[in-house]
């Protein structure tokens, strides 16, 4: 469990790279997946999940205020749910998608809570004070990482879940076809942004 929570913490930090800090692509599923895989001695699982989440997220462009599917949280949750004798891969994949969507809501909430910044900054400057920008940025990053860690920790509870056969069969079929659909989706996204 300590190893899983440590991995969740690592994913929470890497997730910051997706949009909030750096953007050195360290938070992309194609990086996070294999990294987790090698850490837990299952590179095939990590790379496979990373590849799927990467393909499906290629069409999601973070333009303007849009919060796209968070591939880092998706692959992190998926891997942590099924790694090292956890739940079935098809459950991990589906739960990863749900976690990625939930994280989008969390990020949108954090962005709303930051509202009023310009007014506060101007008011502070009018009082002759300098807004402390770097500490404010670090505080926001810590808050976001904390929220991501909490979400991933909750997802770990799904490790003990056993799916009913009917649902498992369908999700297994979906997972088996996902590589082809993911590539088709990425090609469609390329065409759509032409």
């Amino acid at each position, binding site marked *: 469990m300590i190893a899983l929570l440590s991995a969740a913490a690592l994913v929470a930090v890497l997730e910051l790279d997706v*949009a*909030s*800090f750096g*953007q*050195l692509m*360290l938070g*992309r599923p*194609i*990086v996070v997946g*294999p990294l987790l895989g*090698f850490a837990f001695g299952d*590179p095939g699982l*990590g*790379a496979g999940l990373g*590849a799927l989440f*990467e393909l*499906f997220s*290629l069409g999601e*462009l973070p*333009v303007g205020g849009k919060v796209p599917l968070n591939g880092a949280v998706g692959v992190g949750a998926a891997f942590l749910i099924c790694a090292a004798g956890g739940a079935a891969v098809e459950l991990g994949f*589906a739960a990863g*998608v749900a976690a*990625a969507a939930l994280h989008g809501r969390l990020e949108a909430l954090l*962005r*709303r809570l930051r*509202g009023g*910044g*310009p007014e506060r*900054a*101007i008011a502070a*400057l009018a009082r*002759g004070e*300098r*807004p402390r*920008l*770097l500490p404010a*940025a*670090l505080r*926001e990053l810590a808050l976001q990482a904390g929220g991501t860690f909490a979400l991933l920790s909750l997802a770990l509870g799904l490790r003990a879940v056993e799916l009913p056969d009917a*649902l498992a069969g*369908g*999700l297994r*079929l*979906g997972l*088996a*076809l*996902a590589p*082809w*659909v993911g*590539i*088709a*989706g*990425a*090609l*469609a996204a*390329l*065409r*759509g*942004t*032409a």
Partner: protein
Amino acid sequence: MSAFDGPIRARIFGRLMFLQSCWSYDAMQGAGLALALEPWLERLYGARAGEALARYAGCFNTHPFVAPLTVGMLCGLEEEAAKAPEEKRAALLKRADALKTAVACALAGLGDAFFWAALRPAAAAGALVFGMVAWRLWGPAGLAAMPAVYLFVYNGPALWLRWRGLSLGYEWKGELAARLKDVPCQRLIRATKRAAALLLVALFALVTVAAGSWAERAAGLVGAAAFAAAARYAPATTAASFYAWVCAAGILGSLAGWL
């Protein structure tokens, strides 16, 4: 030696990593822009840097990798204004503010089109193809090549532009837009997208060949064709393809179990 030297550029470059840390719906990257410019404004205005910072308290948004071009331009324009006589300063600052918004919007479109819509799919597809081949040749250890190739291919041009953009924006100042017209951006975007498409087709072939059985291959091809048809004739249904895919798989499974 120029005032906009290596150490100050390094500080601004480092602070630009926080450009989106305080992203909000009203100011967007505004707080990040102020954070990045703070060292330069302190150098130009000293104790009066706070007044200069107030000019950057509003809304600002652009692609994060092309933001250094705008930031470099603003550094150059602020320096011009700081050195100008008092009576000309207001007009120069007004011009800087107008250029900030215009250049940021124009560059955002280019940045989104190249880095998000072209280079990212190309780097990912190339890395996935490389990873699959490496796995065949070297076993699971070869999978380490996947993220390595991706990071190298993507971050090479991205980091180059993020660093060099500061100097270019500072040198070109108000002529930034005119100078960028000489760069064949659209040709570069098209070429990168073509490369991405070719690599994705190669990946499709590799995945099909590597499938466990002919039934799996056939099902995969049917699934891809169904998705392509949906994307062509009902694009709204594929907009949330990831979620739709998982929900459809769950429904299929439940139906299969019931039948």
